[in-house]
């Protein structure tokens, strides 16, 4: 049963200094409602799956294999993938491996600035269970506690071929309407926020940035 979002009240933005709170919105994110006609929704999903724009934010070591992926040899452009430098234009957030706490803060901010439909793909083993850095004091061990993940591409480091297979898999999921990470984020917003604030100790940004 989905909680009624409007009944939960506005966000408090308690991390901000009081004089700054008016500068930011206190609205909660809203759920995506599919088109009432099924065939329209299917068509829209097909369109979404075929223009995946990656946010070019190399958050970890996995970013090093994005270069070959996007250049002449593997050329992901032919699958409708291209990189965008700003979150406002991107629809796929590629988490390049481990997320340190400092980066996680920026990841959350970038993710919330992305406009829907948006999907999160995690590269490497580190976002799944910590990988090599499971005992590190500065990297998170389970990325899906902080943001909803639509697809994991495992390996250290995942090869460009695997990345391409991952892109194809993501397309399949989108076309079938199963890539619903953004909705899960909305539905469990308070749970995600509590997790995020548990590791990010200096939360000095609005609760939902958009």
């Amino acid at each position: 049963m989905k909680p009624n979002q409007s009944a939960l009240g506005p966000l408090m933005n308690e991390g901000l200094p009081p004089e700054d709170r008016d500068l930011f919105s206190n609205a909660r994110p809203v759920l995506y409602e599919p088109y009432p006609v099924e065939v329209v929704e299917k068509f829209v999903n097909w369109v979404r799956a075929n223009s995946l724009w990656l946010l070019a934010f190399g958050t970890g070591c996995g970013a090093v294999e994005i270069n070959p992926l996007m250049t002449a040899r593997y050329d992901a452009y032919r699958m409708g993938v291209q990189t965008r430098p700003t979150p406002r234009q991107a629809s796929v957030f590629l988490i390049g491996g481990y997320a340190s706490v400092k980066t996680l803060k920026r990841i959350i901010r970038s993710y919330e600035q992305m406009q829907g439909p948006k999907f999160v793909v995690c590269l490497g083993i580190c976002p799944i269970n910590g990988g090599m850095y499971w005992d590190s004091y500065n990297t998170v061990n389970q990325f899906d506690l902080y943001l909803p993940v639509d697809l994991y591409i495992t390996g250290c480091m995942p090869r460009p071929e695997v990345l391409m297979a991952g892109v194809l898999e993501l397309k399949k999921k989108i076309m079938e309407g199963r890539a619903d990470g953004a909705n899960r984020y909305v539905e469990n917003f308070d749970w995600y926020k509590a997790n995020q604030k548990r590791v990010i100790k200096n939360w000095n940004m609005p609760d939902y940035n958009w």
Partner: protein
Amino acid sequence: MATPTALLDELGKRYTLSEIHIQRDDLLFLKVTKPQAVRFLKDLRDDAGYTHLTFMTNIDYIEDGRFTLTYMLHNYDTHHEIGVHVDLDRDNAEMDSIHNLWAQGRTYQCELREMYGIRFPGSPGLDDDFCLEGWDQIPPMRKEFDIVAFSEERFGNRPGRGSTDPREHMGTVMYPEHRDGTEH
């Protein structure tokens, strides 16, 4: 250019040098006292040609209750390196700043303040965040900081993930029949 031994003889007249240890032909380590250290580094830089600060770091000897700062200096003419050790009191670690001698000294000192809690009075930007942000524990590189417990408590482990000590695991699970043979 003076050879390292001649240099040490000359410097030994003015400074209290101890624990001189020649690791290689082009690398030696020595220890100076804390009040003399910055003057010693300056002399090495200005008079002896050790102009390049390779790095600066700290070693934690928790059992002796001391920190040992290490400054590594390089001489580009003789291609010789000197590691200068300085002992600090572990509980109240404070050291004179070298940000006026080398530009990157400020960064190293900022890092050591964050990672070990060593104070360098006068070093600009000393209390800025370097690697960590919003850190609320004891400085993480200190030996008493238990990263496994902290990581488990703060980040949690995914259920199902196991970790074994290879020595135990190989001896008891994988090759129990060789257990005696592999011990030494």
